[in-house]
């Protein structure tokens, strides 16, 4: 029978960190060179397949669904025009001080989306004096609900009901040729 040797807890266990440190020292410069500290994104992005299908369906049958247009004038008042079956409904969202009232726009778009869940495309006509950053805020506000609302629409391919958090992800500048 062998004699078991017991280690006392007083013995210190020293981990050699030198190889780990050597690896980290090599990794850090590589990552410093290849890292991008400015995170860039692009606004037109890939959409879920079902939403893409619905947009294609809307493009094929433009007269079937409601047409939504946001017209912004020089005083930063946003006019949301909804045209459906020859009937036009216009809502005016006045500016909040010197800035665009984006909260009111988002609420209005949520309301329109609830009435027209299959519509994913809107037309935007900004005024010439509007800054690029203001246009980007309108694009952001039109894309998704501020309150993370979900909308149910019928998938044109399968006929099944699908939930989505997208409001109007397809935005077209409609006054470029004017």
């Amino acid at each position, binding site marked *: 029978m062998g004699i078991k040797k017991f280690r006392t807890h007083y013995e210190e266990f020293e981990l050699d*960190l*030198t190889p*780990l*440190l050597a690896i*980290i*020292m090599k*990794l*850090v410069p590589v*990552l*410093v060179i*290849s*890292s*991008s*500290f*400015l*995170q*860039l*994104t*692009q*606004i*037109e*992005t*890939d959409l879920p397949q079902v939403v893409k299908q619905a947009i294609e369906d809307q493009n094929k049958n433009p007269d079937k669904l409601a047409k939504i247009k946001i017209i912004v004038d020089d005083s930063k008042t946003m006019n949301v025009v909804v045209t459906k079956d020859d009937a036009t409904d216009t809502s005016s969202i006045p500016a909040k001080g010197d800035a665009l009232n984006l909260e009111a726009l988002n609420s209005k778009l949520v309301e329109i989306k609830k009435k027209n869940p299959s519509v994913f495309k809107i037309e935007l006509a*900004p*005024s*010439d*004096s*509007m*800054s*690029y*950053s203001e*246009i*980007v*805020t309108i*694009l*952001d506000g039109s*894309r*998704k609900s501020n309150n993370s609302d979900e909308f149910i629409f019928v998938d044109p391919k399968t006929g099944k009901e699908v939930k989505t958090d997208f409001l109007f992800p397809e935005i077209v*500048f409609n*006054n*470029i*040729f004017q």
Partner: protein
Amino acid sequence: MARRKRYTPEVNKKTALMVNVTSLTDMFTVILVFLLQTYNTSEVQLEPPPDLRMPTSQSEGVLTQGLEMTLSKESLSIGKEILAHVNGKDFNANDKDPKDPNFIPALFKSLEKVSKETTVKAVKDGQILLIADRELPYAVIKKVMYTASMAGFPQVKLITTSQ
């Protein structure tokens, strides 16, 4: 008077010098985690000019390939070639077509040339990555979009910084 001898501790020259690297390793691990987080996995690398301030967006879209176009408060350029000059609010009068003020002839010619010479599919399909200054008015951006669509580049992707 005899001078006092300075105290020098006795050093055992046989003992090896042990450097404790634990704290250094901790620090490097934190740096490593930070760098891994900021590591860019996108296949497209854009370098906006230092004086250009892009708008901020909630969009989380990953950059895709396309023709990189820069529109600052001073100029419009593709790569390093300056095509037109901007005075902050509009293009210079001599850069615009006298018959159609929305048309930028130099941009049109350059895009036509790129379209013929490129081998990149996204550029052939008419995709532009527009890096523009956030303070520029829509009137300037509209002229770029107008000329680009005339030249067969209808897909303009707006490049922004993430929030």
